[in-house]
């Protein structure tokens, strides 16, 4: 007689084995956090479409596959030229590379960094100097309502730890590159990043997630960011997983007084993708610019959930998410801005725009504002539409053929987000990637 094991049970028994295996080397507080997370996961289980936050995303395809962690401690050894496509050309940056979730020191390098700046494998720090992580790790990304964040917290082994001490300015970007090779049987990786910017610092962090093959794997990533007073963070997440892959990510950001954060989330790859971005204004006078671009085709499904907590007065947030949906793809946007009672003089604006390039593509947009303060300026809006036929006609009457006109307008739609990327070589790369998805772009590329 066949015994049915529920997906939740599989993860629970995996955890028991995992806990035994690492117990000797783990700090008690991390052990405790893992235990709390798995217990929470046991209580809430995987989300279903009955839950509002998962209404459009069915995670059963993920739960049906018995993903296993890649067993080899260092992952497969990859020659550097294989990952070149996922780096940013001549970009002068420090780079940490992870293969199937494992840190790959041979592919990683650090350029000159100001004194005291630490850019390390989090797995290493977890074992050697766990105290550095203790004030932040697991305390920024909440897992009480999010099964995948709970699983990451229970199972994570490695990722990046970036710590910028008070006053330090890191001029060159720090690139964190997660590459999956889709081995058999299908693997899961739990990248865990912790970025701590102390007061009056500045840094640029790029997270990249990429799939080398077309195979099936799961990336369940959590990035926690603590931004100190007066600090400036430029953050990018570039998701280029293989189209057979599953990608679930949570980005959680705490902003201190007078800080300034820009975070851009670009989703090009993955078969089933869910991105959660949660930010909290923890003190007054801060600014946040949250941008997103999801460019989907075929059967891709990408669900973006953002939450901005305006808990304190005098903060400004600008949010622009844009979706370009072709084929039978599905793009979801759900955004919530919560303006708390004391958050007077809040200035918040949220926009989601979707462009449908085919009849079978699907977009759902749910912008949201909850305002409990009375002296605020808030606005939100969303659109789902097609290319403007008048604009296509206008371009054609000037000699531009129809395909190029369509590509030009589609590119123009994306350009607001592309142009918000401040790192030049990344912007150029993104330009190329977007163009390569559009038909008839020969003429376009010549113009750029």
């Amino acid at each position, binding site marked *: 007689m066949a015994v049915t094991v529920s997906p939740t049970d599989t993860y629970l028994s995996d955890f028991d084995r995992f806990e035994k295996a690492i117990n000797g080397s783990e700090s008690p507080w991390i052990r405790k956090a893992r235990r709390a997370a798995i217990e929470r996961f046991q209580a809430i289980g995987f989300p279903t479409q009955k839950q509002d936050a998962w209404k459009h995303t069915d995670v059963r395809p993920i739960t049906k596959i018995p993903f296993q962690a890649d067993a080899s401690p260092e992952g497969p050894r990859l020659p550097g030229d294989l990952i070149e496509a996922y780096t940013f050309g001549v970009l002068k940056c420090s780079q940490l590379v992870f293969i199937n979730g494992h840190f790959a020191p041979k592919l990683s390098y650090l350029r000159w960094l100001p004194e005291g700046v630490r850019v390390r494998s989090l797995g290493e720090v977890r074992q050697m100097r766990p105290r550095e992580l203790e004030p932040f790790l697991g305390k920024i990304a909440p897992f009480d309502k999010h099964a995948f964040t709970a699983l990451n917290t229970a199972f994570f082994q490695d990722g990046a730890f970036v710590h910028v001490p008070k006053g330090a300015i890191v001029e060159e970007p720090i690139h964190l590159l997660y590459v999956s090779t889709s081995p058999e049987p299908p693997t899961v990786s739990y990248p865990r990043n912790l970025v701590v910017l102390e007061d009056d610092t500045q840094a640029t962090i790029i997270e990249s997630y990429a799939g080398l093959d077309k195979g099936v794997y799961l990336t369940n990533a959590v990035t926690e960011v603590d931004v100190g007073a007066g600090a400036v963070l430029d953050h990018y997440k570039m998701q280029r997983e293989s189209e057979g892959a599953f990608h679930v990510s949570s980005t959680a950001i705490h902003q201190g007084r007078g800080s300034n954060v820009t975070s851009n989330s670009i989703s090009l790859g993955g078969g089933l993708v869910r991105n959660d971005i949660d930010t909290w204004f923890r003190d007054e006078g801060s600014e946040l610019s949250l941008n997103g671009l999801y460019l989907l085709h075929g059967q891709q499904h990408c669900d973006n959930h953002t939450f901005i907590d305006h808990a304190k007065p005098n903060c400004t947030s600008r949010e622009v998410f844009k979706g370009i949906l072709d084929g039978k793809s599905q793009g979801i946007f759900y955004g919530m801005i919560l303006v708390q009672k004391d958050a007077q003089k809040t200035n918040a604006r949220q926009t989601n725009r979707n462009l449908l390039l085919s009849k079978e593509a699907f977009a759902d947009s749910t912008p949201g504002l909850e305002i409990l303060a009375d002296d605020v300026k808030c606005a939100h809006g969303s659109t789902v539409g097609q290319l*403007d*036929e*008048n*604009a296509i*006609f*206008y*371009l*054609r*009457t*000037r*000699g*531009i*053929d*129809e395909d*190029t006109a369509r590509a*030009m*307008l589609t*590119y*123009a*739609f*994306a*350009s*607001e987000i592309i142009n918000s990327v401040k790192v030049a070589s990344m912007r150029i790369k993104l330009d190329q990637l977007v163009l390569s998805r559009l038909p008839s772009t020969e*003429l*376009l590329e*010549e*113009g750029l």
Partner: protein
Amino acid sequence: MLEIRNLHANVGGKEILKGIDLSVEAGEVHAIMGPNGSGKTTLAQVLAGRVSYEVTQGKVLYQGKDLLAMKPEDRAREGVFMAFQYPVEIPGVGNAYFLKAALNAIRKHHGQPELDAMEFLNLVNDKMKLLSLDETFMKRGLNEGFSGGEKKRNEVFQMAVLEPKLAILDETDSGLDIDALRIVANGVNSMRSKERAMLVVTHYSRLLQYIIPDYVHVLAGGRIVKSGGKELAQELERTGYAGLGIEEVPMVPAPARH
């Protein structure tokens, strides 16, 4: 150059053009005048190739070829240009980038080498001055946030750069103050040549004081009801359309603006 024979066209199932006959030779400037709803814009859009305007009868020959069988982009490449009454705003597509793409598409069609960014800028520089456009203009999104006058200047600027053989100006005077009108008219006049024909579509004779036409046609109810020389415009100025026994019909719902 342009031969329109018994042209009938429907917009949204309603017949707007009811048999237009018109012949335009190279070097000539023809004004098409008429009250609202007479079919002026429909005629311009049909010549430019808008699909939603359905031609039900008649023929249009352009340089001996069947114009109506050509795609809008092929008409443009063969030298047909229409200055829009309502130019479309396209944020994210830069003016310079757009115009260079258009110019190169046309050059390619004629087997001419494409221009690079520097060559393009050299070429357009004088023409920008002609239309009183400054450098920032080229960097802005196509018509993005332009005033009415800027949009019309941009249309004539594009015409000056693309150098069409047949230029159709659809209500290029509407919404212009006198200074802008002079700039636009000056731009148009500088384009007059023996090789080029122009169709100037307008409601009012005001523009025709600056762009002096060779011929004036009055369009009413989808037909040309009177043709004459430039003095016909002056006559209309005095008597109004009523003087010709033409009633101003209420504006038809503007077809497919933005």
